[in-house]
């Protein structure tokens, strides 16, 4: 991959992250290096305690490395202040969380508009248009004015994905995005991620579920704060096919 000409979205160079717990120093990340290119669908796997969450926080600019360098879209994050990182998250990153994290008593379209509220370049009209476009892209064109408590888990997660798309980020960071969903809905969400991947989006999907790796283009396995495995998936399975092969839902 040395002669790779694709655009580098994320570059980690020997990233270490230590935490002070009482008198002990916990090494959550012990020197992690990798590059993620534009258009990749990467799963990051690892058991709990593997440093997975810490890595996600690094990638999401929620935290800064103790040492090493992290470049997001060519910008060094390590020395950034809180405020600058907030801005970077707002412009470059789309988050999808395990428990959706939608605002209560708020309509789908308002939820999706949220990131753009913190971007003064967007007027109310532009915001609304962008949110409607994103909701249409996740197949919720008919659910715009539904409030979060009027939707199913799958719908809520799709609203969350629309929210991650609305600022046109360079990277979508999904944290156990199917963790709270049943098998069928999980596949529906995976279909959506594969569709976004096909459209050229760069996606990082953090999970402890090895099954999901089969539907991504690359799989990074983390253990004890180090990369144990980093392989490209030559044989990407189609989530749509898997969904079709699921037994029909029983009415019981």
């Amino acid at each position: 991959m040395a002669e790779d000409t694709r655009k580098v979205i994320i570059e980690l160079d020997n990233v270490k992250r230590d935490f002070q717990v009482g008198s002990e120093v916990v090494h959550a990340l012990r020197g992690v290096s990798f590059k993620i290119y534009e258009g990749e669908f990467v799963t990051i796997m690892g058991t709990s305690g593997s440093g997975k969450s810490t890595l996600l926080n690094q990638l999401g600019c929620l935290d800064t490395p103790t040492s090493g360098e992290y470049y997001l879209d060519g910008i060094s994050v390590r020395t950034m202040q809180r405020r600058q990182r907030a801005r970077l998250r707002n412009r470059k990153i789309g988050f999808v969380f395990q428990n959706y994290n939608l605002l209560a008593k708020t309509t789908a379209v308002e939820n999706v508009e949220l990131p753009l509220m913190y971007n003064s370049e967007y007027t109310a009209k532009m915001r609304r248009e962008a949110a409607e476009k994103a909701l249409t892209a996740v197949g919720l064109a008919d659910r715009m004015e539904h409030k979060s408590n009027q939707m199913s888990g799958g719908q809520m997660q799709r609203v969350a994905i629309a929210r991650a798309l609305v600022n046109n980020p360079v990277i979508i960071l999904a944290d156990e995005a199917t963790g709270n969903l049943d098998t069928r809905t999980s596949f529906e969400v995976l279909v959506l991620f594969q569709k976004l991947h096909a459209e050229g989006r760069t996606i990082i999907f953090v999970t402890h579920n090895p099954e999901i790796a089969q539907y991504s283009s690359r799989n990074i396995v983390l253990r004890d704060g180090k990369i144990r495995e980093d392989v490209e998936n030559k044989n990407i399975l189609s989530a749509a096919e898997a969904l079709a092969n699921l037994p029909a839902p029983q009415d019981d």
Partner: protein
Amino acid sequence: MNFINLLKIALKAIANNAFRSFLSMLGIIIGVGAVIIMMAIGQGSKNSIKDQISSMGSNMIMIRPGGNMFGGVRMDPSDMQTLKVEDYEAIVKNKYYVNYVSPEVTTSGQVIYGANNASTTMYGESAEYLDINSRVVAEGEMFSDDDIKKSSKVCVVGQTIVDNLFPNGGDPIGKTIRFKSIPFRIIGVLKAKGYNGMGMDQDDLILAPYSTVMKRLQAQTYFGSINCSALSEEYTDQAITELTGILRETHKIKEGAEDNFSIHSQQEIMETMDSTMNMVTLILVVAAGFSLLVAGIGIMNIMLVSVTERTKEIGLRMSVGASGLDICNQFLLESIMISVTGGAIGVGFGWLVSFAANTLLNFPAEVPLWSVVVSFIVCVIIGVGFGYFPARKAARMDPIEAIRYE
């Protein structure tokens, strides 16, 4: 983030917790309402007292025997007898800034006509009493200087006396009534003036020549007081200086010695009244203000709960790009809106109560405009002051922990 977005977010948050927001507003509503009502009562009573005093004649000057007393000074009884006929005559002779002069001797007692009697006060005066006190004789006439010279047993009565002594109607003029068993012939009836603001019936009086009251009723040689009026309100100070000069001369008071009389103007009384009322109003407003402080603490309490409860929301907002300042502003605006909305309702509530008191209970209450402005400013200060601590707490949250908060 721009202000309109912030406003939308804050409004939404308040609407989502409408009942709770209303409860925390309630403290402010009651507090501001109480302050407004207190200010309205203070202002209203002040104005009504002012009106009454000036209706008595704002250029009135009162001379009383005895010097100004401070603290527990022992007083010589002779000090109460310092105002004599010579003083009155000297004032009448030398006055320049003083317009009208009337000595006054009062005595209370029973007045009888036929089978009817009433308790009242007789005022021994000069004819200029009418000019000083803005009174008019409606029927008959005022006693003359000749009556004073002769100490005639004539009198002018107020309407209440007429009502009490002549309950079956009939012309009181020319009738002879007895006051403390001395017969007085009624020669005039004063035009009714009604009650004054302190609830005193201004028509329950009998006017008689001062000489008659002094010689025939009281057997005394001194006046209770001398009332004057200045040429106009502006000349009050000059008139007081003039009167002081005249009286010091007739009393032969040496330079440097203290006056054995005291002079007060209506204006001065009005000013004293004003500052007393201001003090009372201030005390009332401060007491009501404490409830605002309590309300502010209530808002802080609710905001702290709200911040904890919405930790996840704060984490989400931070993840999608809200800076600490954005979060701080959001919560600050929320608390400001609660307190200002509460304040607005409180002003309305206070105004309504004042208005009702005014129209239904005839209680003098006027909401001064500045109190509304001050209330609003205070509400903003409360919002910022008590919202800052919770807002800062929200702004300092770590997004990583906040987003995973359960």
